[in-house]
């Protein structure tokens, strides 16, 4: 089973890279862009048939390793 996880900085934490991308897009003429937040995308293949169980494991992984819960949020998507 494949599950993806996206880790982004929390709303209130300054995201310098996102800000720079946002500014660059404006410089390129994309004036309708409001904001950009940059994050990390993980594609995880897991040997687990039960969807709920797999999600739980990925959630644990996100909390323990992939994100720093103090400054980052994560979302998990099942494919």
């Amino acid at each position, binding site marked *: 089973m494949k599950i993806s996880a996206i880790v982004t900085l929390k709303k209130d*934490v*300054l995201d*310098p890279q996102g800000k*720079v991308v946002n500014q660059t897009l404006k410089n390129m003429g994309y004036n309708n862009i409001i904001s950009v937040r940059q994050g*990390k995308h993980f594609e995880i293949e897991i040997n687990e048939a039960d969807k709920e169980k797999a999600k739980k494991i990925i959630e644990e992984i996100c909390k323990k*390793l*992939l994100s*720093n819960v*103090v*400054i980052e949020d994560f979302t998990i998507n099942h494919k």
Partner: protein
Amino acid sequence: MKSSVIVFPGSNCDRDIAVALEKFKIKNEMIWHDDVNLPKSDLVVLPGGFSYGDYLRSGCIASKSKIINDVIQHGKKGGLILGICNGFQILIETGLLPGVLLRNKKLRFLSKNVFLKVTDTNNKFCSKYKKKNIIELPIAHNEGNYFANNELLKNLDDNNLIAFKYCDKKGNIKDNSNPNGSSNNIAGIMNIKKNILGMMPHPERLIDPILSGEDGSMLFESLLNSK
């Protein structure tokens, strides 16, 4: 006094700290991150560098390496741990020190000398700074912007757990003497028992007049004095 320097793939200040420790007659051993057993040590040093290429987050992968369990146990038993630069980031990722280190406010890798005020000398790392509490040390980092919420900042202040703050030449702690945007100009903090110190500046780089200064020496002299 015996020390162990933990070497990770990507550490690049491990030799510098080893030279510094040996200069102050601290018997040092280099320990590879993949080892499981930490030899009996009074002091464990997590050196600066870019452990595991800063993958995921600075210090993150190193904080899960095999040797770290023993390092955490050593710290919990009251053993001394010093984390410099990437070592500080690793200490934060292991949870041995609170807060978080964000990217420098101005998004630049900083490599320069800064002035620091030693804001607590009542600990085993800084006792020798009583006579001279405004010092100059180099910094070299990209993620050194220490962030803590108000509750944690108050806790650090109330318990005198902030060891170093960025200041100007005269010791004024102001916004324009803050190189990376750290909360309250914090450059180094300790845990509640004060046996674990994490700091962004590099004391091991200024331990000899030939290296243009000795402001780092007092930290090692303090450690020797603590035994």
